[in-house]
């Protein structure tokens, strides 16, 4: 019963969010509105479920609350929703018989075959020892806060809760703790990322760069393997990608998209602690690049409000201190900062990891530079290099054994940035089709 209610609730919520995206930014393409609806819906499930635990709201009351929200929104905007569905239906008919849809279907098929070959019951080590374990605590509404103790520090109880709360929401819906739920979520995220990159690069027609993006994701065993492991890193990489995709679309006719940019970027902070670093770096870049447009910042921060409020409530009221930044480490941090061999070790190991699994990024950078497509002063370059600098600093001051820390995390850190980097580089390479004079200005 609960699972049917949940499915109906979520479906209508998605439709409502699609309409909301249209109301805020009518000029945005339907595909992007769909992406906004999907990402916002996923995040809202998590926020609502977490808040229902914090405020001791029963699961059926939560579902009732979402249904009430849907009813209120539809009552207000149903004619518009119906009209939007009416306009999408004929376009969808043509889309289903296109080469674009065939390319998408075949890519999804290949990724699904790979997923079925490598996926494990309960996922990789971190999936069951961290993410599903946190979800198991969240499944019990009266005992969920037992998680937040350093007595089981191995499970990192300070990690944010988007993935565990979404898993727990669906477990509560089906009334059982099932390994199929995290696996299905992992599959959805695995196929969503290439689809987002492909659809965004299409720009109205099938082109070589968009096809290349599908080829890169389908051929990247590292990407598919990590995405199938059911870790939160792939979900984080999706939100990082969406923040850049939406930001790229912000212009005079779609100025309100910046609300959703803020929402996606801040929601990344609710997935993993690395997401907090991403949000800080992304916000830093927003401020640097839009110093003279405070209205844009304001909208960006309004979009960030709900995710940041939920994150603050979690970090201030529940999460135990983080092992990296707890008080009493100032002396050891000073010592670590002065240890020059650590810097060399980080550079060496990160470079090796990059060459091992992400060399395609290096190839794309070389192709762009050879064709004089510079990007060093662009928004994405500033944001992503700030994130990388942050990761570097974290490695320098880590209290763990440095070599172990890098070898166990570098792959996933690069994985988090991989889809966004591929999208941004291919997007830049699309400028090759423009006249030379138009290529010189950096994108975004």
């Amino acid at each position: 019963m609960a699972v049917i209610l949940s499915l109906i609730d979520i479906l209508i919520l998605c439709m409502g969010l699609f309409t909301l995206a249209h109301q805020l930014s009518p000029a945005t393409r339907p595909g992007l509105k769909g992406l906004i609806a999907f990402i916002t819906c996923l995040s809202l499930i998590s926020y609502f479920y977490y808040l229902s635990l914090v405020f001791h709201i029963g699961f059926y009351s939560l579902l009732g609350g979402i249904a009430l929200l849907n009813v209120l929104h539809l009552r207000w905007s149903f004619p518009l929703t119906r009209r939007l569905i009416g306009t999408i239906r004929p376009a969808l008919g043509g889309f289903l018989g296109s080469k674009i849809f065939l390319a998408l279907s075949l890519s999804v098929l290949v990724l699904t075959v790979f997923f079925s070959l490598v996926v494990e019951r309960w996922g990789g080590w971190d999936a069951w020892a961290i993410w599903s374990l946190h979800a198991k605590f969240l499944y019990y509404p009266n005992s969920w806060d037992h998680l937040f103790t350093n007595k089981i520090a191995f499970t990192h109880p300070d990690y944010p809760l988007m993935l565990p709360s979404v898993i727990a929401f669906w477990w509560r819906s089906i009334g059982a703790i099932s390994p199929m739920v995290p696996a299905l979520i992992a599959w959805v995220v695995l196929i969503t990322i290439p689809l987002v990159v492909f659809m965004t690069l299409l720009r109205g027609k099938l082109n070589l760069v968009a096809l290349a993006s599908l080829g890169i994701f389908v051929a990247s065993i590292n990407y598919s393997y990590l995405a199938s492991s059911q870790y939160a890193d792939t979900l984080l990489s999706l939100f990082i990608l969406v923040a850049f995709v939406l930001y790229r679309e912000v212009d005079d006719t779609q100025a309100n998209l910046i609300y959703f940019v803020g929402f996606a970027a801040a929601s990344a902070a609710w997935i993993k602690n690395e997401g907090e670093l991403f949000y800080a770096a992304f916000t830093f870049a927003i401020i640097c690049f839009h110093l003279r447009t405070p209205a844009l910042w304001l909208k960006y921060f309004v979009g960030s409000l709900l995710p940041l409020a939920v994150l603050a409530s979690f970090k201030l009221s529940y999460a135990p201190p983080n092992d990296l930044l707890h008080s009493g480490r100032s002396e050891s941090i000073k010592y670590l900062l002065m240890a020059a061999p650590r810097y060399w070790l980080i550079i060496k190991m990160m470079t090796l990891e990059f060459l091992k699994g992400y060399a395609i990024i290096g190839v794309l950078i070389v192709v762009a530079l050879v064709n004089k497509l510079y990007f060093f002063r662009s928004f994405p370059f500033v944001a992503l290099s700030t994130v990388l600098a942050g990761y570097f600093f974290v490695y320098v001051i880590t209290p763990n054994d440095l070599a172990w820390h890098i070898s166990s995390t570098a792959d996933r850190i690069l994985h988090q940035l991989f889809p966004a980097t591929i999208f941004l580089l291919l997007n830049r390479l699309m400028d090759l089709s423009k006249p030379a004079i138009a290529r010189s200005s950096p994108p975004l």
Partner: protein
Amino acid sequence: MNESKLKYASMIALLAVLVILSFTLIKIRRTENEMDVLTQLLAPVKQQITPSSVIGYDSNLPGDRERAVYFRTVSVLSPSLVVEAPGYDTLLTVTDPSLPEKSYDNYRSIQQGEYKSLSYRLFVSKK
């Protein structure tokens, strides 16, 4: 290829996706790993302790295997807390019966069981 051929080819690909995904989910549902072994093994313990319980844990398993079994035990018995430290009134041991067992003089055993290659004992403090 004309539009209808493209549509059929896409539909066949998507149908294949649905079939493969369904088989994958069934495989995930039916396979058994160490988490499931521990779920079976510790089912009586889960009934014995309350969700608010905090119990101690020990094992005779070697190195990495001990880590994996402990983490999985925490997962199976959540939301009760299983802490790998001495001094708790209740102590759970998950052991390999083929290896020498440790003695716990300050505790008395109240429950035990065995499933596949693992066994468990639940102790309470004599105090």
